[in-house]
């Protein structure tokens, strides 16, 4: 790997600023290994829950011009089996692993954290985009600065690993949420999760395409939203940011970095450019660096 791509993240030296984001190719150790070999700097597991989840009925995916609509339904083998995949991964690779967890309550997040404490994961990521849990004002937890604060705070008080809070873009004021995370002790934030929800209709059968009707939106069309939210978050917190959303090329990645991200997550990009996307983007970042006469990734400027 080219030295110019090296970055530091929470005290760890990474080969590349690229992160495999949660929920894409992240169910099994061999899948994670392949993404690591394809030169992602860090890889993230699928969000793990206390008990296994089969997910929603299909269709769970619909493509449209500009993006992807998904309602996977957080299918995962459960925290115990998920962490076994992480240890199997670690038998073959020393790349850092972010374990993503998803709970329906503070207590669930705490229990999940205990499991991750005893695992070989390197970071813990809290998927706060829970569609079913609301605060006393009817806001989803991801949009409630108080709920987000409480969850991050309680996880942080027991976690042995650095804690990353993954934020939803579907909020009124991202700054408030980002500040809550920082105040609660989050070591980093990751944004954005999928946008919406949205809906698509099959005009011949006159039915919603997704069995779940609604799904989260990802892919190229969400990039401007991700860029804006990373920009706003960067303005108001000092903790590192993993910028995610619609990144397909080296230029997109550099755009995300300049906006304020320390690392760049890749998800739907795998659909558009295959699992080799990490290698491709790394090469393209190097080209962008050369063309614009930047020494290396760490010396890219930040948008003020």
């Amino acid at each position, binding site marked *: 790997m080219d030295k110019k791509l090296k970055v530091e993240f929470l005290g760890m030296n990474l080969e590349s600023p690229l992160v495999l984001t949660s929920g894409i190719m*992240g169910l*099994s150790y*061999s899948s994670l290994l392949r993404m690591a070999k394809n030169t992602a700097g860090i890889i993230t597991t699928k969000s793990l829950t206390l008990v296994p989840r089969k997910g929603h009925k299909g269709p769970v*995916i619909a493509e449209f011009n500009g993006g992807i609509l998904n309602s996977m339904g957080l*299918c995962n083998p459960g925290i115990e089996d998920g962490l076994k995949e992480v240890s199997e991964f670690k038998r073959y690779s020393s790349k850092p692993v972010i374990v993503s967890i998803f709970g329906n309550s503070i207590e669930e997040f705490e229990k999940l954290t205990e499991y991750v404490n005893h695992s070989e994961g390197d970071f813990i990521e809290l998927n706060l985009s829970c569609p079913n849990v609301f605060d006393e004002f009817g806001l989803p937890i991801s949009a409630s600065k108080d709920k987000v604060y409480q969850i991050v705070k309680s996880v942080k008080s027991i976690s042995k690993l650095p804690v990353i809070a993954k934020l939803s873009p579907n909020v009124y004021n991202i700054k408030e949420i980002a500040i809550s995370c920082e105040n609660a002790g989050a070591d980093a934030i990751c944004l954005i999760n999928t946008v919406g929800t949205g809906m698509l209709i099959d005009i*011949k059968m006159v039915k919603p395409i997704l069995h779940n009707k609604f799904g989260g939106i990802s892919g190229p069309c969400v990039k401007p939203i991700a860029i804006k939210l990373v920009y706003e978050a960067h303005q108001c917190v000092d903790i590192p940011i993993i910028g995610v959303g619609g990144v397909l090329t080296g230029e997109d990645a550099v755009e995300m970095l300049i906006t304020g991200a320390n690392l760049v997550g890749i998800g739907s990009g795998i659909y558009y450019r295959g699992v080799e996307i990490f290698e491709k983007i790394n090469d393209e970042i190097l080209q962008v660096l050369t063309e614009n006469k930047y020494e290396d990734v760490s010396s890219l400027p930040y948008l003020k």
Partner: protein
Amino acid sequence: MDRRITLEIKNIRKESKSVKTFTFSYNLNAKPGQFIMLTDFECGEKPFSISDCTDNEFSITVKKIGEFTTRLFQLKKGDVLSFRGPYGSSFSLSDKVLLIGGGYAVPPLLFLSKMLKKYNADITIINGAKTKEDILFIENFKRITDKVFFTTDDGSLGNKGTVMSIVSPLLQNEKFDMIYASGPEPMLKKIVDMCDTIPCEVLIERYMKCAIGICGQCVIDSLGIIICKEGPVLDKEVVKRLSEFGVYKRNASGKRVYF
């Protein structure tokens, strides 16, 4: 971007008590081994191999096994279904070939055998199942070649025993350019283990959700091969290196289920 297609069922043929072939008028332009994702927008979306495909129609052959397939069995000619695909890798064509099919995984081999016949290949087929009722496409295969062997566990049709009871002696007497296999995974494993020097392609089924290579559901250990994209047809040299092959698969949650 993959487009959805909505098609009327043009014809339904009963193959056995629990197997039906559904035919649709559409130029799908598929290759043998590829599959489509099928939905009725009610009971889920499931992968099915293409069991026949010409310039103006294609078929799938379905075994009734659970909720979705039971629903399919209630449909009639003229009812509509929604498709996406074709997806995945396909079988290559060779000159002197042996097709080995087991149970309900035989449909893709019917399509393959038709393509091989067009290609003027020298074709031998071995088709095995538990009992006579479960053997698919007896007449179809007989029309493809004289060299068709059937095996049943109970001896109700053809040789009593598994397909291996024919495969082993056959391989000692004859040389093939290629072996194609589709069937229960333990059977596929035996075949792959046996094919030291003979080229071989096998069709591997895994639980599929997105079918576009992102959700990770169908990825197989230890190489991380994405079955919906890089499979379902894999070369035996790749298959031999898969620690998961013949040992376990993953269910809808991603939990391992051992064979």
